[in-house]
């Protein structure tokens, strides 16, 4: 049992309390969902549970937290290692070892277990979580979903009673999310207590016991599973929550009318690609995109979405096929000049020392006016002089989109623009894309986010298909079949 008693916390470097007067009791074996807008204090709440607060992130504490009657504040994070296990958001940066087997062993080795005990524990974790296919692999060759499973496995070897998941589905596709839900179900059946922080929580709807809405550091609302799943849109949207039933959007979808008489056309014919000595990743892909189209690129992890983006943006050379813009065949360099890619990880894309400089980077002529306009349009005026690294995730993303606008790219690609975003930020990205499209930009979006796809895309390109893949106008029928594939 976990109890928060009037718990408040303030980070050392901040003047305001991030968590205020939290009173919460979690019974053993419950699965609790913590949700709320970005920056509401969800992550802080779980950091105080796994001991990172106050030892790793120092600050001021009021009140108390206890686990089975023992105060957590007296324990060091290392004492908590065998009691509370945490699976972090980004599977790339939570691995200490370079191969999977040793990653599973990592926790046990830290605890000073003997060789035999460590091997026993790993074998147990591998059997119970069905990880035997992933043993002895380099962590650099795993997909995000596989990494996530190894991360869960490496926590499981320590046999903690409490599991904490910090936005576990942010980097996963639908199949991997399903697998994640299965693992959580297993853990729940075995009587473990589970706390999940999540924005896209649809996959938990059959598992949760209670859900808590956190607003500005306070527990604002408590829901039972039934209450939470029955939340009407009128109540959910003001809270900034995503939908529990994304597939219901499918039947309400109205096809977007795109006027396409003139304007720029990007045409791809018979595109194929394979890495050296490997089978084809992409085979015979053809599509035609017009000014104002928003095309969703869909497919499971490893279907070649990122590869397709790399070819389209001129980073990789195709094996065969042509890419034409207004009837002219494009070379790699021309493709690079024509397109802009907004990456999932914006940290790679920010080079300058201020937001203003970032937007004008790489421009040859004077563009002060355009930068000012763009900053205003993206609501970034207040951060003009700030260092891009000091901004929040959503703001960083807007800065990179801003750079695309200033560069005047006629084709913009988005790679997973909504991973880890709350409802408001998702809607904002969606609107921004609509604005760009109506200004005549051709837009491609790689996404796993069903809610976002139905809201934003006018056409889809499904890479899961077998041969001769083409783009289709998004219709309720396609959405229905997609939702069956994704959610059943």
């Amino acid at each position, binding site marked *: 049992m976990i109890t928060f008693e009037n718990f408040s916390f303030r980070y050392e470097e901040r003047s305001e309390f991030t968590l205020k007067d939290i009173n919460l009791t979690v019974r053993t074996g419950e699965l609790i969902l913590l949700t709320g807008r970005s920056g509401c204090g969800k992550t802080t709440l779980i950091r105080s549970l796994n001991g990172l607060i106050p030892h790793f992130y120092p600050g001021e504490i009021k009140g108390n937290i206890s686990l089975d009657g023992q105060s957590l504040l007296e324990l060091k994070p290392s004492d908590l290692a065998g009691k509370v296990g945490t699976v972090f958001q980004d599977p790339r940066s939570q691995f*200490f*070892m370079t191969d999977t087997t040793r990653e599973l062993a990592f926790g046990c080795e830290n*605890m000073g277990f003997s060789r035999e005990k460590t*091997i026993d524990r790993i074998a147990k974790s591998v059997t119970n979580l069905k990880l035997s296919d992933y043993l002895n692999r380099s962590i*650099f060759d795993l997909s995000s979903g596989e990494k996530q499973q190894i991360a869960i496995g490496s926590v499981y070897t320590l046999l903690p009673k409490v599991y904490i998941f910090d936005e576990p589905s942010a980097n996963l596709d639908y199949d991997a999310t399903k697998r994640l839900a299965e693992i959580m179900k297993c853990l729940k059946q075995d009587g473990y207590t589970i706390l999940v922080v999540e924005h896209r929580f649809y996959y938990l709807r059959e598992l949760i016991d209670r859900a808590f809405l956190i607003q500005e550091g306070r527990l604002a609302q408590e829901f039972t599973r039934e209450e939470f799943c029955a939340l009407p849109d009128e109540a959910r949207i003001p809270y900034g929550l995503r939908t529990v039933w994304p597939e219901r959007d499918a039947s309400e979808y109205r096809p977007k009318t795109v006027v396409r008489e003139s304007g720029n056309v990007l045409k791809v014919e018979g595109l194929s690609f394979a890495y050296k000595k490997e089978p084809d990743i992409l085979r015979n892909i053809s599509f035609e995109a017009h000014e104002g189209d928003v095309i969703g690129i869909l497919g499971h992890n490893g279907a070649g979405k990122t590869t397709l983006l790399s070819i389209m943006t001129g*980073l990789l050379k195709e094996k065969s096929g042509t890419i034409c813009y207004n009837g002219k065949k494009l070379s790699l360099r021309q493709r690079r000049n024509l397109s*802009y890619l907004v990456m999932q990880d914006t*940290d*790679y894309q920010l080079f300058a020392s201020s937001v203003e400089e970032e937007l004008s980077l*790489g421009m040859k002529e004077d563009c002060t006016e355009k930068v000012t306009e763009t900053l205003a349009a993206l609501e970034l005026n207040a951060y003009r002089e700030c260092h891009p690294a000091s901004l929040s995730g959503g703001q960083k993303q807007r800065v990179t989109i801003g750079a695309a606008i200033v560069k005047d790219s006629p084709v913009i690609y988005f790679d997973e623009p909504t991973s880890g975003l709350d409802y408001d930020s998702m809607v904002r990205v969606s609107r921004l894309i609509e604005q760009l499209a109506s200004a005549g930009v051709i837009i491609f979006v790689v996404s796993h986010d069903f809610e976002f796809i139905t809201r934003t895309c006018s056409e889809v390109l499904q890479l899961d298909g077998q041969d001769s893949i083409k783009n289709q106008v998004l219709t309720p029928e396609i959405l229905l079949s997609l939702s069956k594939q994704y959610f059943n």
Partner: protein
Amino acid sequence: MKAGLGKHQSRLTLEDSMEEKIKQLITQKHFKRTAALDPRCKVALLILIGCVSYFLNGEVTSLALVITLTLFTAIGNGAKWAAKMLIFYILVACLNALLRYVSIPVLSVIMSVFGVTILKLIPIAMMGIWTLRTTHMDDLMVSLQRLRLPQSVTIPLVVMFRYIPTLRIEYRMIRNTMDIRGISDTLWKRIIHPVSTIEYILIPLLMRCLKVTDELAASGTTRGLELEEKRYALNNVRFGLPEYIVTISGIAFLAGILFLDYTSIGEIIIWRV
């Protein structure tokens, strides 16, 4: 009743054999022969080779060192790669010899110094990269702990060890975005504006480093990284007889080669074009 029991038993043995299989997978050895040596032995050899390679002047003796090292690493999981390094060494040596026929003031001296430096660095790099490739991180942590190094030394070392392969991936990502942004997309621009190119690469790289190390540390801490218990790796890490033999014969070989270097053998010139 009896039949039921039999069924139960056969299921049990099936589970047992599954577990046996998994355990075999877990304890599978990836590195053989010289690559399976204790990390302490490898690190000791690395340091010794570093010093000796620095003091060697003779061409025959240096070549002997590289060839021995090639054989040594070729036995342990790296035959192809070791051969490539040997060819690279010979190539650089020949190019360096060619420099004698070129006489541009200042530049040829600089080039010659550069060439000799590379020749001296190759054996060190070979041993270093091979050690990185053939050492499991947990073996390294255990052997560092057995050397009684404090955790404040071992943890940063291990994080560094872990971060090196990641650097290449991160660098590639940044280069890609630079290409798309149109910043320094030609070799020419890279030559004219080296500082800004370095800056464009370094800033995102450092930002990523900061973020990744922070998250890595948090993830390690919650899994007990800070505990100072005695560690046991999945492999048996022991400084045993093979390690003693390799270390002692390594020292003998290096001392011998250093001695020969000061005799007339050190003066033989082999790189003539």
